[in-house]
Every structure is written in C-alpha cells, then in structure tokens.
C-alpha cells in the first residue's frame, strides 16, 4: 500500500502536474505535495499518483559507501557518543 516507485521527471505541466518516466512507462503525476521544486531530470518517488519526495542520488551513493566497510550504525553514531543524548 505504501509502495512508492522511483520516476524521472520528463516535463513540467500546468496545474502542478508533471510527465514522468517510471521504468520506461510515461505517466502524468501531481507535484502538489512535493516539498520543493522538481525539474526535468530529477528523480522523484511516486505514490498513488503523487510525487512525495525527491530522491537524493548523492545521499544514495554515500549510503552505498557505508555498506562497503562500516555498518550504518558506525556511520551515524560515532563511537562513545550517547545515542540518546
């Protein structure tokens, strides 16, 4: 139900709509609840016809890098830090 799929913005349209490419299929979706602007070329996450978030590719690459050696926890909580502080 909370399934959301990545899509590439192809074209901005009237009425806060956009044409996007979802794995090769083109579809018109709404940008009404997206926080911030989207431009052609951006990747957004689509849920029930609405873009709900932009996908941060740099952040994706950083996350992948942490998988190489560290765990997520080592990355986000440096040793000795009180996690509840």
């Amino acid at each position, binding site marked *: 139900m*909370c399934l959301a799929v990545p899509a590439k913005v192809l074209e901005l349209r009237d009425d806060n709509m956009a044409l996007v490419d979802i794995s090769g299929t083109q579809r018109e979706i709404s940008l009404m*609840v997206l926080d911030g602007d989207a431009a052609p070329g951006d990747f957004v996450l689509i*849920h*029930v016809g609405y873009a*709900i*978030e932009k996908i*941060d590719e740099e*952040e994706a690459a950083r996350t992948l890098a942490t998988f190489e050696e560290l765990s*997520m926890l080592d990355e986000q909580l440096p040793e000795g830090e009180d*996690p509840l502080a």
Partner: protein
Amino acid sequence: MSVLHQFRDSTRAQAIIERIRGRNTGDISIMEFCGGHTVAIFRSGIRTVMPEHVHMLSGPGCPVCVTSNGDLDRAVALAKTPGVILTTYGDMLRVPGSRESLMQVRAQGYQVEIVYSTLDALKLAAAHPDREVVFFAIGFETTAPAAAAAVLQAQAKGVRNFSICSVMKLTIPGAKALLAMGEVKVDGVIGPGHVSSIIGSDAWRFLPEEYEIPVAISGFEPLDLLAATDAIMQMHEEKRPALVNSYSRVVRPEGNRKAWGAVERVFSLAEASWRGFGSIPESGLVLREEFSDFNADLRFDVTVEDSAEHPACRCGEVLRGVLTPPECSVFGTACTPESPLGPCMVSSEGSCAAYYHYQRQMA
C-alpha cells in the same frame, strides 16, 4: 539511475549477511511495521539467510488488513446508496466484509471502481456530474497526502459531487498500541520507509527514548533491509538503542512538511477501529468540520449493524504478531488467495498472502 540499482548488489549483500551472522545478539525479534517490507523481506529471500536466532516479525503494517469489518461494511453500504460511484484502491475489493465484499456488491450491478490515484476519482467525478463519487480512503501517512490533495483540489475547482469516507490510520499510535499490549517481544523495529518520508525519521525517536527499542528506518531494496537489520542487531548487541536512518536518500529527519501540512489542514485526529486491536484513540484521520461538504459519512445517511469477522479468521492475531499465518488452522486450506476468509490473505502485502506465496514453497 545506476546508483539505485546497486541497492540490489549481491556482493555487498553478502558482506552485510556475513556481518549479521557474526553478531552475538542471542535470540532477537525484529518487527517491521510496513506491509511493503513484509513482501520485500519474503521476496528477496532475506528470511532464508538469517541465522536461526533472528526472528523476523510482521506488525500491523498493511492498511487493507487493519481496516475493520465495520468500516468495510460502511463502504459496502455507501456503494449501495443510489447515485453513488464508490472508488477505492485495488486490494480492498476482495476483502470479505461481514456479509459481502465490494467485489460482490459490484457483481450485483452497483458501481465500484478501482482507482490508482485520488486524481482518477476526481476525474470520474468531473465526467459524471449527475453521480456522487465517493472515495473510500484507506492507508497510512504515506497515502494521506493524496487524499488531502484531492479534497483541496475539489474545493478549489468547485467539484461538488466528490466526497471521502476516511478510514485512514496513523502508524505510530498503532505501534504504541501493539507495544502496550505486551503480547509480543520486540527487540528492534524496522521503521517504515515511505511513512517516514512523510512524517520524518525523528517521529520514531520515541522507540529508543521511551521503550529502549532500537529502530532503523529502511528502504525496500535488499541492501536497505539487510543494513537496517544489521544496525538493529548491533544496537541490541551493544545495548545502545537509537534511531538509525538507512533510507536517507529519501527520508529526512523532519519528513515532507508540505505533504503533512496538507494532511493536517484537511484532517483531524479521531479514534479509529483497527482489526485485531479494537479502538485506538487519536489513531485515525477524519475530515475537519470546514471540509464537511466532502465528508461522505455526513453526506449520506448510512448505518451499519452487526459487523463481524469470519469466525475462523485469525488475521487480528497475525496483525499483532502473536500468530504466524501457518499456525492458523484454515491457512492454505479453507483460506487461500483465490478464496480468502480475511484481508491478510487478500492483500498483496498481507502476511498470510506473503507466507502463502513464498514460505509455503520452501516448507
């Protein structure tokens, strides 16, 4: 978008699996609160590579499944109201209500339409000005902005034949209700990725801070789920419960304030009825008074009596994580995806359907 495909990379997955296998946690129960995760965990085979002492549990994360029969019966009654076209998301149609499903209602000649989006329901209302289009809104925080946006658009465009019957629910009161029941041991939580994209990862801080339960927000690819599981195990092992966001490419600490702002503008909190849990205070979203024109419950005089579950169906216990689907006596026999007795076997992300499609083959 090659970087996103790398979240399925098997070499990296193997490295995380090795780390998980090396962790000295003892028996550990990890629960996800998202039906999408339930399916992703089964489909990716993650259950099959976990050490025996790691127990993966599913919580009340499937919106179709937690919808009570009383609420579903109301949708059935709305669908039978003269002039109404009832619209809803796909899985809901086949769920057996107390007496009949929406699919059976449709077979009697009433108009029940599956929509992919609230945008489609609005289009239907524009195309049929002589009919009343009612959207039966199920879903959690991820889905609520689409319902709010539809109401705001209907208001802005003066669409008068569109209304919503909201049975939408919030995941956090559901999670708290489950923990308060104390029936099931939860040592760690895989936090719902797309719910969190809306409400923010910070919304889950109460788990480590109030319950000392580690939580890792996760995406839906195998590496996301493995990394989240590993982070939970490490926090459990080191006895330092915290919040980890392993889905930071999508989820921000504060979430999507614009989307949640639209939800708060249109809806207010109310008591809601959850299958398996009963009533949970302030866990549901109902239309605010100023949007009464769009409230199907006020526009149509519908009463529902004597709602009941199928006597053999144990979906409620499955949703609370106290019963695994194969432990139910009708699982795979009287209750199958072709002929389901309860929603957990109907919904594509219900636990019973997931066990039926994936685990049964392995047994």
